[in-house]
């Protein structure tokens, strides 16, 4: 098979090795035990998602981090398929918390590549504005009273904005590119 120049460039990028990557990941909250993974594959066996997507294989993802295949990992949208069912965490004989490691990879992707699924931008901007994930229509809030339900508590947008700033999410929210779906 003959590869084009651009394909060859792509191979170089996805196979580039960053030896410091495993330390960057395992320095993140919840991802500390990454180096304890001995590739038994229990995480993948119990994962409800792996059978739908060849890339989304927690065992393989752990190995790729250890090998420093940062670009190949972060350029693959399949990372967004984890449902956070936490089966992998409960099943791991080594106490590796794979779901938190996937979270760390997503967090790094957002921070460094400034890209996230569109749904998250919508969620974040709603929380910033109203405290709630959804823009709940006024009419629905008023109807609560007719139904004998208490009024909904309000957010404190000034405080929330400060938390967004402190975690440097305000900046990301402004600059990040978005994509709609993962196949």
């Amino acid at each position: 098979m003959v590869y084009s120049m651009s394909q060859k460039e792509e191979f170089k990028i996805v196979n580039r090795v960053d030896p410091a990557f495993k330390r960057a990941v395992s320095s993140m909250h919840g991802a500390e035990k990454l180096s304890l993974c001995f590739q038994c594959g229990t995480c993948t066996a119990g994962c409800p998602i792996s059978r739908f997507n060849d890339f989304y294989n927690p065992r393989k993802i752990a190995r790729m981090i250890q090998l420093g295949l940062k670009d190949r990992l972060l350029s693959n949208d399949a990372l967004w398929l984890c449902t956070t069912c936490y089966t992998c965490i409960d099943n791991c004989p080594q106490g590796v918390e794979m779901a938190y490691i996937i979270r760390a990879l997503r967090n790094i992707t957002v921070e460094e590549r400034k890209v996230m699924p569109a749904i998250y931008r919508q969620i974040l901007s709603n929380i910033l504005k109203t405290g709630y994930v959804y823009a709940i229509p006024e009419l629905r809030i008023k109807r609560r009273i007719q139904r004998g339900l208490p009024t909904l508590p309000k957010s404190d947008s000034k405080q929330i904005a400060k938390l967004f700033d402190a975690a440097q999410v305000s900046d990301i929210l402004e600059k990040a590119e978005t994509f709609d779906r993962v196949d």
Partner: protein
Amino acid sequence: MAEYLIFLGCVIPYRLQSYEISARRILEAFDIKLVEMPSFNCCGFPVDPINHELASLLAARNLCLAEDLEMNILTLCNGCFSSLNKTNRMLKEDRGFREKINKTLGEIGMEFKGSIEVKHLVHVLIEDVGIEEIKKAIKKPLRNIQVAQHSGCHLMRPSKYASPGGRGGMEMLKALIRATGAECLEYEDEDECCGNPIIGVNEEIPLQLAREKLEHVRAAGAQALITVCPFCHIMYDLNQSRIERKFGLRLGIPVFHYPQLLGLAMGLQPDELALNELRVKPDGLLKRIMG
């Protein structure tokens, strides 16, 4: 009796008031006093994939509000329970993490102290009310009714935080169902995820997971599926007609919020429990229960 700060979350007031209405109804009947949150923000769960620090801060702000009132939190949603409970436990146990979060909370005049607990509705019913008290409150035992349960992931896992010993949340829900007099049937892959958290990026996988779950429930012969989480409920009730169309199936499995099932057994009327708001109409089953 017990008193809790109720944390409704976002999904329930947005589109599942039937869960809130039925839960308030039964908690009132058991003399559990509910106090509304003085201020509110998202529990942090949907933000975690983007930024774990922000998710922890959002959870911690709610925890601090509860600490100020010296009250424990009761959630109806598994996502809220998971996020608030996990953050609460981690902040209590991990000094470095607590110092980091408290540094930022200081900027909004708050400090996490670690003085409260977070419980889900299921825990409050088991631990504060108790199975025996629930049995005493049953006026119309649901004899000859067979249902299946779906407790949802975040009531079970990670077991370190959600249910020390493994399947805690699921076993609790089964016991609560049996207390109504109904039979709780076992089925294949009972603890499998509903898939809802990724429906915003991929619809195919969650719909396929939900289809499999509903087919397993049907194969076991259950007349209804019982949930205790708005995310799971949406997958099985709201999306059931979509699943039927997409896969060319006929399912017709009613999906009740647990307090609706309990409420019926306690002799409450369907309209008091907002049963008319379910998408899959439970008419046949209601007839059997109401007699």
